């Protein structure tokens, strides 16, 4: 079953600046009123890496992680579904999904995963 992407971004009602994650005041104008928005559309890969020395809690050999920008300018970190960084390039399109990203206390923790698009 496909899950909806459950992160919320915050658009400053005063100046329009988009924030993710939440700030109590706008980074630009210090406004405190925000419109809740969802990341929209596909995303552009801004940077990425493969981590081979994983922290406690991950039972796999490596993890590909990146930072992306959605079509509506929301920027966020997520895991990337790629076997190798050779498949990736700064600026490429990736498709966002909401999937388990780690296990904590025996429970799946959901988060952003991105699938490279051809």
């Amino acid at each position, binding site marked *: 079953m496909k899950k909806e992407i459950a992160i919320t971004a915050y658009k400053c009602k005063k100046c329009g600046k988009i924030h993710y*994650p939440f700030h109590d005041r706008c980074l630009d104008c210090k406004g405190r009123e925000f419109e809740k928005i969802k990341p929209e559309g596909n995303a552009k890969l801004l940077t990425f*890496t493969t*981590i081979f020395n994983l*922290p*406690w809690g991950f039972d796999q050999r490596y993890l590909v992680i990146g*930072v992306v920008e959605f079509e509506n300018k929301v*920027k*966020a*970190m997520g895991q990337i579904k790629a076997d190798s960084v050779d498949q990736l390039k700064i600026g490429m399109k990736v498709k966002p999904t909401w999937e388990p990203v780690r296990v904590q206390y025996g429970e799946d*923790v959901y988060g952003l995963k991105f699938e490279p698009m051809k």
Partner: protein
Amino acid sequence: MRDVAIIGAGMIPFGRRDEDTLMDMLSYASLKALDDAGLGDKSVDAVYVANMGGGMLQHQSAIASSLVDRLSLLPAAAETIENGPASGASAVKNGLLAIASGYYDTILVVGGEKMREVTGWRATDFVATMTHPQAEYPYGITLPGMAGMFTRLYMEKYGVTREHLLAISLKNQEMGTLNPYAHVEMALDRGGIYDSPHAIVNNPVSADPLHLYDLCPVSDGAAALVLCTVEIAKKTGKPYVVIAGFGQATDTHTLAEREDPTDLKAVTLAAQQAFAMAKLKPSDVSVAELHDAFTILEIAESEHVGFFKKGEGGKAAVAGKTRLGGQIPINVSGGLKARGHPVGGTGVAQIVDIVWQLRHELPENRQVKNAEVGLTVNFGGFGNNVLCFILRRVQP
């Protein structure tokens, strides 16, 4: 604001110190600094302890109170300062301001960490606790991972190459072999880690494009300083060091929210503040200790503090400009890369090394000739809380 001097500096060898507790390390480094300051059987007004993992790794809190007892410095005031990997510089900052205020005259600042008693993946997780708890940590991001993403962007924007990074690894690890306090005691050779068939085995990818030897080791260690008024420093009759400039700035918690993630705004601001206070400019600096937790950071910081133009730091390193005897010797101690990186200890250790440089007391193969002005950058989080100090030699 009255001037503040440093009259004592001490360090214990960094590395794997299974035999010592965190308190042992903090205490030994403190005694060395107190002895160096001529306060071996005296007390101080206050103590600042820089430490990040006492609670998480040693299950111990209020370690500053514990340390003043252990050292019989009672009833000296004491607190612990935590600012991730910049905890050390933050503790020095608070010592500086406390003496500058006129309230205290003599302060012990000590920083240390015991990281090797947990497994590597526990240590990696411990350091990752400074990433954003919702937007970063759950994904398994690590500090080397942050550095890998940063390196990829820096390479793309400024043409930094693995050859540039290699110059940092080789220089710092070579200098580490000359430093009796360094964690890493082995010199590297270019073939072994870069352009021989064995290189990929010896120096595997860690967080690409960074390889194992682009990263500092996980270390136990501690370092300490005694800060005081200039009046007290003058009475020692010996050359001493004054804190001529200080700066600190913060940046967004997540890398994603930075307009240009290659722009380390907090480094630039901290350095600008420090130079303004010291009334000095980058070309006045004789020697610098930069926070090279990752080789890319030495390059990026050398540009952001103003030693080199953006994009020139890597080439300068390759050209030997940052070696001993070069235009601006950087990390003559071996840096975090070779001295090691006990997180709470690093910011203090950097200043200890600069104090030794400015007092002209290092052996010839490590001493920057006639060093008059030193600079340190201690980089917290992934550049979201950075401190810069400028230190100056005073010959009484």
